[in-house]
């Protein structure tokens, strides 16, 4: 009894349902093409209404008027398995996600810490139930057997190889973890249980089946070890520096901050990545941490720059309570793409590169204060500009002449002395989102010689509206 297998029979559903306000309402997870949506899995309430996996959504709607549905998302399932692996990592350093929708872990070395197996098992069940994951738990002498037995049993603990043999023998052939093809072939030969197969001479099987079959049988009986990869917790940077005294000013924090950013930089270099955002925790003696979020537009790792940025943000914060410690937590660690640098750098010493200037501005003024501007393909002028943090280049508008500055709202323009230079240009568009416009636009010149962009609403006599200025 060295290995535990926990099978999560409804991992996808549980993943969705644990976040769902009404977990007992009928729920189905959908997959398939947009044209033919199919029910992938259904919960008990939905099953009671006649919904079945494999049904088309249309057929399901024919049966049941309303039921909740969500996307069946393999990526999400993978994520939950990782989440559960991280959970199990507390109990064993040898956790494996070798089998989908299941966890395997070694417990021999953990039993001392977590008590005898019944106690340990009860704790596992309690925690899993609280987390909202249905499960079956089996303990067995080897991992393959534990996984296969968990197909049929819940709460089984097999102590030794003799007991294992007894437990495996009656296992139906299609639940014994064999390749589907081999399982089908065996059952078509009339062999219904593992015992039937084990009773056959090995060489007759070797002649008829791929080598995988005998290997699996050997793995089940423990004669052949299963090569397992073990779970590694994710990389992150989390370092704190405890201060020996209460700090009240920014100034005194700069030194430890420089240390931390330098360590971070070293860490990033070591794994050849950059950082896109990190949190700075100011730990107080009495109160909760003050958290300062530092975000970058692109992944960076240059220590001076990281320090400058963190400092910019830090200096904006009021240190409300004495600080006892400083902690830097970085989890977003994308691959670092260095800037190409010319051999002969022509930048004058005093000027900042644009990226650093941009980051400094953001650090000083706040994230929302520095925005990019993008074109958006829409005939309506007010929809043709968008503020965006996305630094990628965008397509320009074609041909038409547009003012460089749009007013937030069009404002009435007194027509006296306004001179029409060009137009009308008619724009009728936007009916689909309820903001349909029908306007005739003019290039106008005001008495002061400014060039503006103004429109009249077609079919209305509410005068001229100014919407923008040409430079």
């Amino acid at each position: 009894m060295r290995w535990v297998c926990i099978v999560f029979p409804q991992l996808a559903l549980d993943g969705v349902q644990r976040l769902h306000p009404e977990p007992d309402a009928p729920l189905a997870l959908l997959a398939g093409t947009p044209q033919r949506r199919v029910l992938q899995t259904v919960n008990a309430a939905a099953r009671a209404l006649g919904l079945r996996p494999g049904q088309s959504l249309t057929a399901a709607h024919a049966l049941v008027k309303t039921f909740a549905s969500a996307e069946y998302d393999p990526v999400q399932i993978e994520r939950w398995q990782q989440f559960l692996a991280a959970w199990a990592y507390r109990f064993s350093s040898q956790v494996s996600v070798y089998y989908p929708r299941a966890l395997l872990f070694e417990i021999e070395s953990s039993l001392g810490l977590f008590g005898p197996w019944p106690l340990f098992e009860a704790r596992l069940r309690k925690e899993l139930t609280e987390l909202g994951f249905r499960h079956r738990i089996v303990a067995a002498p080897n991992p393959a057997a534990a996984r296969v037995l968990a197909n049929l049993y819940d709460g089984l603990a097999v102590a030794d190889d003799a007991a294992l043999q007894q437990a495996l023998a009656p296992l139906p052939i299609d639940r014994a973890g064999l390749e589907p093809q081999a399982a089908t072939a065996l059952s078509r030969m009339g062999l219904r249980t593992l015992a039937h197969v084990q009773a056959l001479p090995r060489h007759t099987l070797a002649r008829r089946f791929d080598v995988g079959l005998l290997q699996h049988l050997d793995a089940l009986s423990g004669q052949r070890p299963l090569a397992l990869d073990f779970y590694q917790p994710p990389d992150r940077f989390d370092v704190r520096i405890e201060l020996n005294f209460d700090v009240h000013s920014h100034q005194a924090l700069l030194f430890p901050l420089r240390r931390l950013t330098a360590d971070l930089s070293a860490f990033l270099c070591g794994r050849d990545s950059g950082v896109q955002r990190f949190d700075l925790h100011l730990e107080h003696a009495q109160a909760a941490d003050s958290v300062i979020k530092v975000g970058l537009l692109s992944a960076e790792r240059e220590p001076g720059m990281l320090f400058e940025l963190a400092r910019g943000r830090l200096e904006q914060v009021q240190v409300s309570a004495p600080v006892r410690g400083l902690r830097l937590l970085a989890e977003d660690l994308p691959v670092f793409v260095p800037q190409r640098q010319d051999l002969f750098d022509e930048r004058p010493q005093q000027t900042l590169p644009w990226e650093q200037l941009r980051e400094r501005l953001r650090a000083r003024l706040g994230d929302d204060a520095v925005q990019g501007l993008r074109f958006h393909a829409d005939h309506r002028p007010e929809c043709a500009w968008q503020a965006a943090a996305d630094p990628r280049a965008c397509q320009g508008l074609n041909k038409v002449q547009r003012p460089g500055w749009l007013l937030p709202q069009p404002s009435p323009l007194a027509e006296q002395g306004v001179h029409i230079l060009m137009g009308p240009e008619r724009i009728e568009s936007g009916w689909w989102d309820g903001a349909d416009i029908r306007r005739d636009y003019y290039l106008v010149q005001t008495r002061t010689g400014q060039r503006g962009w103004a429109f009249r609403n077609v079919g209305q006599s509410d005068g001229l509206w100014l919407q923008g200025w040409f430079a």
Partner: protein
Amino acid sequence: MSYAELHCLSNFSFQRGASSALELFERAKAQGYSALAITDECSLAGIVRAWQAAKAVELPLIIGSEVRLENGPKLVLLVQDLSGYQYLCRLITVARRRAEKGRYRLLQDDFDQPMPGLLALWVAADDDTQASIKWLRETFAERLWLAVHLHCGQDDARHLQQRLNLAASLQIPAVACGDVHMHVRGRRALQDTMTAIRHHVSVAEAGTRLHPNGERHLRSLDALGALYPQALLDESLAIARRCTFDLSQLRYHYPRELVPEGHTAKTWLRAVTEEGMARRWPHGVEAKTSMQIDHELGLISDLGYESYFLTVHDIVRFARSRSILCQGRGSAANSAVCFALGITEIDPSLTNLLFERFLSKERNEPPDIDVDFEHERREEVLQYVFQRYGRHRAALTAVVSTYHAAGAVRDVAKALGLPPDQINALADCCGRWSDDAPPLERLREAGFDPHTPILHRVLTLTQQLIGFPRHLSQHPGGFVISEYPLDTLVPVENAAMAERTIIQWDKDDLDAVGLLKVDILALGMLSAIRRCFDLLRQHRGRNLTLASIPKDDPATYTMISKADTIGVFQIESRAQMAMLPRLRPKVFYDLVIEVAIVRPGPIQGGMVHPYLRRRNHEEPTTYPSPELKTVLQRTLGIPLFQEQVMQIAMVAADYSPGEADQLRRSMAAWKRHGGLEPHRERLRDGMLKNGYTEAFAAQIFEQIKGFGSYGFPESHAASFALLTYASCWLKCHEPAAFACALINSWPMGFYSPDQILQDARRHRLQVRPVDVQASDWDCSLEPIDGAQPAIRMGLRLISGFREEDARRIEAARRQQIFSDIADLDRRAALDSRAQALLADAGALRALAGNRHRARWEVAGVHKQLGLFAGLPSPDEDAVVLPAPTVSEDLHADYATLGTTLGPHPLALLRAELRQRRCRSSRELMAVEHGRNVSVAGLVTGRQRPGTASGVTFVTLEDEFGNLNVVVWRDLAERQRLALVGSRLLKVDGRWEAVGEVRHLIAGRLTDLSALLDGMDVRSRDFR
């Protein structure tokens, strides 16, 4: 002031033009335009409709097309005269044939020869090169204009001036035109939506692919006058005056090569007809028939249709020479001439169909003959036609696929950015072929609020889009054949299927220009009958043809009257089988009626029950007038056929034959386009004048409406009935060969091989299992002592088994039967998959015993290939494997063959069912009418016919046969789950047995499917 619009797209520029030709013409007329060009993009698909619209509103049509040259300028080509029209057809054909379906590639080289009669408007763009400008001037010379589009863009004044300067510098005239995409500004939203659909994006994402405003419509003359200098508007009129071509100038010529040297079409048709007469009536032709033929030939000659009959004759002759079974039907097919020519097998002396009804001097429309061919061999016939006449002279007609409600709401909802699940839900709210936007009721039921702005937009646009053409697809078999290249008449383009070309006109457009169409269709039953004839020749020494099957056979009619018709043509459906015991057909014409009567038309017209009552002498047969007696006598005073409705209109309401034909067309189309109302008054007034009652007139009109598009013509019914009779005779007298042929032609018809084999066994035919030592790919016959041979199941029944593997087994076995599995493996070269399938299906029992054993052996032998190939197999101790149980065999039979020769699943469950007090279908036959009973059976069919309001018909099968269950709507709704979800269903209900008509009215449904676990029992679901 006036104006002619020379650049205008109709909705045949798919997903671009947002108005129909009729809408455009009506608007242009109302605005005082003096002509309108329809210039769909590289297409003349909509031009016949435009021509009809132009005639209807009396505004000249100019035919043209907008094209973009590859790496070259965009042009609007306009047709000046007939030669120009032919050049345009040719250009479009060349450009379309060069590209995949739905696209085109037009090159400068395509204009190499001079094209007088084709005018060009140049739609200049900034990226037009000097070279292409030079090319334009050289190619079109004085036939080139610069098109000036003014659409309230950024700076129209400057744009106009630039264009005028350009024209002046090139010394070509400029002309005003509108690049019209819709008839009124109000179609702007639809036009934007279509743009989004075309680009597969939502409207919000479409951005600058949308037009900036709604100016691309037919603007008022005032508005145009304010925009354009007068000279540019006047120039449009000058161009319009030059374009004098009209579609009525087209002349279609029948192919001539069918007539040999020294003959005219007329003399040659007479010659082949007489040749056929000698074959049909070897002992001399009756005077009456001979007169009929003379009369028909005279009529054909007067109308000039000899070549049409010769063409059909030629195709049928080809099919015969290849032993492809075929039969003609439809207007003109049931003539004595067609019988003599071998186009049909309906002996005109046996029926009283009148030729005039299908071909009349007054109507002057092309005759229509559909010819059905064996479904598996029709392609040979198609390719023969392409070869015989060449691809430039023969092509399939197009079918204009139009938007139905579901497709329209789907595309619109997608363009408005709704998520896929909601799009599907919306589409589900539409009836299958419905042409109305989804009803608000249904939407609410599906959880939509129809009054939200987004849904309101979806519904409004859907309503506009419904009925719009969507794309061209190919007609299933309508051929157009011409003496001269087809592209002198109409552009030809590629179909989606390789080796097929289609013309750009829909079948409905052909009549307008007098094009000949021959329908070459596919029919599964013909394949089955031909196979049956082959089997009879091989195994039974009987040489039968459609013509030589004994007529008026009482045994056959007795069988039909008992509704013992599983597998036969047309009268095998549930509804048909329910009707047979009531109708009790005794002569051929009864079958013609039976085929036609169980259709939505007569059922909705309320004609079925009156007819049955009269036939069973429960009510007297009366006629509204002596004149109508001649029309209605053969159907006991009840109009059942389309032709009769037309005749009533002629006899009772003084319609001319041409008008009656108009009525027929309106009947077919009223559901979609309306247009029956004028006939209501016309019929009523006419009938009142002739002394009929108002009530009778109203009744006739209701019947006409009921016929709708489902009305069945007698001419088709007669041809179908002939196949019905033939298939019934075969089933009656050669049931083994017939069942064999049906299965070998599958998929076709209403029943699965399992049901056909069960039916065969109920008729005491011996069915033998698949066996690699005896089975071919097809099912075959094996002689035994007894009247009928045994049916040997073919390897084609093993699901997933490949034909080439079966053919290799056949070939190897012909040398010598197999001695063991290893021998089979060696000589038939089967892969492990094929071997496993054989083993699982039980086909190896002669070589290896039961399935389990066979699978074990096969696995052992086959593994030897590869590394150890050729080594003697090591001696293995015999391994003990459990033998399959009866139930395991049953499961395996269903899983591999879809049928079983062992006990029926219900036979195994009978004891259990008896405990639940279920009776078998055989026991039910002894139960008296009105008793409450319980039965259980496999659900083999669920049908909810549109004609029976809310009733679901369920067919249950048990070990003794089938049973019909009627489930009324409220029960269906209460027990929907059991009704839809059951494979094995228990029904408690009331037994109804009146005469031969028996069924169970369901009172309660119970799902017993759990008893069947693991069995693959297929059900035909709602259709």
